[in-house]
């Protein structure tokens, strides 16, 4: 494919990827984690405050990179923020992932890059989490950048490549401390590939030029010397960038050390995951085949799994003496090692698989190019490519737009129910009736896991109080609106509850909230509803 044609095609792909990521970006109710991250960002936006928390929330890049999006949208406070602004950050980095693919340069054929870009651009889980305000789309973009730049540095260890390597490593680490897994598996993959290609190269050399072994040792030493300084630059940049972010740009230097201290906490969480514990095959079972109850459609990435498998097999089969040609083998090993590590760790959430799934999708691109090469009939190629695109598009539609928040979707995880938006809508309607409007007194009584994402949805109300248990609240009065977890509502006395009209709403599947509205406000609300319906 000619360069110009590839450029046009790539722009077209970017436009398609942007469309599926941006279309109805606020469709899905905010997830517990998104709302939590939004609140953290709100503090940075309003007060310029950010301090790394080694216990939770991961690294700071998400918050700092959200700032320009809020500024450009003219949103200066937490209350002014919107879902589109926040999720726009994830969309941006989801697209950056496609651009990162281009940095693989000559190590992938143009056709391989094109198909890999199609698969990355339309992949249902990648699209889903590119519309999700958590660290994951940044993590995958920086992670893949690091994997590619590590290879480029390995091939050409100069200062330019070292700079890119250091920057990508720093950003990756500043996004999630747990990126150590990616750093380790990519280095391990590189070592294995080097060993395999060096072994092949050496066995040939041994058979033909046994006398040259001393010379090659000298060459290795010279190589090491050549690499040392650029490598030091890469490490320096990694440390500087990590320090800048974790120290909140010098305000809290302790944050940088805390990021290392966090390993023990995250390590404990990884092996004592509570209800996030899933079996070894969890990630592949989500990708392989998933069907919800009733007439739910089938969700499956089988075509891409098969193509990725073809890509992996080909990469190993074509492992060359010349390591320049072994990028695919390196990528295959990285994806396999990373998938293995994440599968062994009992703590699992669907978004953790994205980093290795992105690697496999690039290999699927390589696998598909090979399949197209062996098919000789042009029409068959077109039909196959069309069928694959149709399947990818159909699955992306189902996952992201039709079953965006329903448990039948394999990537929906502890997602806020659409019914929750009815509660939010009801509170909004009540505020229009209440004398105090948005200043009406709202109590929220629920444990933290049943509170979020309320602080996001109630961000425009000025008088909202949060209590984690009913015992902390002597009387529900004078609150006009009380939102309680069903458990906490059960602790209130009957006479007290008689002052309120109550209704159930779903927070998540199996988790119900109780909305209690003081009778005087409820009666006014009903009157208003009756008069407006006439």
């Amino acid at each position, binding site marked *: 494919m000619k360069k110009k044609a590839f450029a046009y095609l790539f722009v077209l792909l970017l436009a398609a990827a942007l469309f599926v990521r941006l279309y109805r970006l606020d469709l899905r109710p905010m997830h517990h984690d998104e709302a939590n991250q939004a609140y953290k960002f709100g503090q940075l936006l309003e007060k310029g405050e950010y301090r790394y928390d080694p216990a939770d929330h991961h690294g700071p890049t998400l918050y700092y990179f959200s700032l320009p999006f809020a500024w450009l949208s003219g949103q200066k406070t937490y209350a002014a923020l919107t879902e589109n602004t926040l999720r726009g950050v994830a969309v941006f980095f989801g697209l950056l992932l496609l651009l990162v693919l281009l940095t693989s340069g000559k190590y992938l054929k143009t056709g391989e890059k094109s198909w890999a870009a199609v698969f990355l651009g339309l992949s249902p889980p990648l699209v889903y989490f590119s519309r999700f305000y958590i660290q994951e789309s940044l993590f995958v973009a920086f992670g893949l950048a690091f994997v590619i730049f590590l290879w480029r540095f390995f091939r050409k260890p100069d200062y330019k490549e070292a700079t890119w390597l250091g920057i990508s490593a720093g950003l990756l680490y500043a996004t999630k401390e747990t990126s150590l897994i990616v750093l380790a598996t990519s280095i391990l993959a590189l070592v294995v590939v080097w060993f395999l290609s060096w072994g092949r190269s050496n066995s040939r050399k041994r058979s033909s030029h046994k006398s040259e072994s001393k010379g090659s040792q000298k060459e290795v030493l010279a190589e090491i010397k050549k690499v040392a300084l650029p490598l030091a630059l890469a490490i320096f940049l990694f440390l500087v960038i990590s320090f800048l972010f974790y120290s909140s740009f010098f305000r809290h230097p302790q944050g940088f050390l805390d990021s290392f201290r966090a390993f023990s906490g995250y390590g404990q969480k990884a092996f004592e995951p509570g209800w996030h514990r899933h079996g070894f095959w969890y990630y592949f079972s989500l990708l392989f085949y998933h069907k919800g109850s009733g007439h739910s459609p089938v969700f499956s990435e089988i075509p891409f799994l098969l193509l990725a498998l073809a890509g992996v097999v080909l990469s190993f089969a074509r492992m060359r003496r010349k390591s320049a040609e072994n990028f695919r083998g390196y990528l295959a090993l990285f994806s396999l090692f990373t998938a293995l590590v994440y599968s062994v760790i009992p703590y699992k959430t669907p978004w953790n698989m994205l980093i290795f799934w992105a690697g496999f999708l690039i290999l699927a691109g390589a696998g598909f190019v090979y399949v197209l090469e062996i098919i000789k009939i042009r029409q068959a190629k077109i039909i196959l490519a069309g069928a694959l695109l149709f399947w990818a598009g159909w699955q992306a539609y189902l996952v992201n737009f039709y079953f965006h928040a329903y448990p039948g979707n394999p990537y929906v995880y502890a997602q806020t129910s659409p019914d929750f938006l009815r509660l939010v809508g009801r509170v909004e309607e009540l505020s229009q009736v209440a004398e105090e409007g948005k200043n009406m007194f709202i109590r929220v009584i629920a444990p933290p896991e049943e509170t979020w994402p309320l602080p996001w949805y109630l961000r425009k109300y000025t008088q909202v109080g949060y209590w984690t248990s009913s015992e902390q609240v002597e009387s529900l009065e004078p609150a006009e609106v009380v939102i309680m977890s069903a*458990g906490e509502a059960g602790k209130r006395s009957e006479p007290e509850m008689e002052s*309120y009209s109550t209704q*159930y709403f*779903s927070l998540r*599947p*199996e988790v119900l909230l109780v909305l209690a509205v003081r009778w005087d406000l409820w009666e006014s609300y009903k009157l208003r509803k009756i008069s407006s319906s006439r």
Partner: protein
Amino acid sequence: MKMPVKLVLSAIVFSGLLIFSLLAAALPVLAQEQDKVELKIQLPKPMFIGTPRNIKTPNLEAVTGKPRGPFFVPKGTELVSLKKPVTSSDPQPVIGELSYVTDGEKSGEDGYFVELGPGPQWVQVDLKAPYLIQAIVVWHYHSQARVYRDVIVQVSEDKDFVNGVVTLFNNDHDNSSGLGAGRDKEYIETNEGKLIDGKGTRARYVRLWSNGNTANDMNHYVEVEVYALPVK
């Protein structure tokens, strides 16, 4: 100190009269109660074990986690809805068939419920003859803790529900279904179903409304049972 004999005698006579009057008043009621028997409902296997939420509020029903108490119906009351024809506001259900509503299968598993479209929808059971309805038990969907909104149960002898409509249950607190605001309680679905007192209302048709639920916008029915006495 001597007790005035007249006062003691008067007290005895008065007490005797009082006891006699109370007994006389209670006897018909007792006799009536003796004619009543406990309604036996075959319950499906529970599909989830939810934490009991004993919410004491005027319009949310408490979930105690204990079996429902006995419900008494007149002797001779029988299940009259089994295999009876069912119609609906959504004649082409998304999942299942309308006949599931009265097929006697109450399992909470997939394949036993009918799914009607979103928004206010009804199913109607034709009992084929007028009965004195004693109890209606409805299972919307019981494999998950969810609440169906705006549940309204009406009975009538008019199949179009224009004349002689009696509303037995209505928890549409804000009149969003447009059939009038009700004051009955919202409740969480369980394998026990929701038992509604028929109060001996004479009717041939039973119509049940709902308006989505807390898990999605759809309306579901696993089973509806109508217990009634034949009209003599």
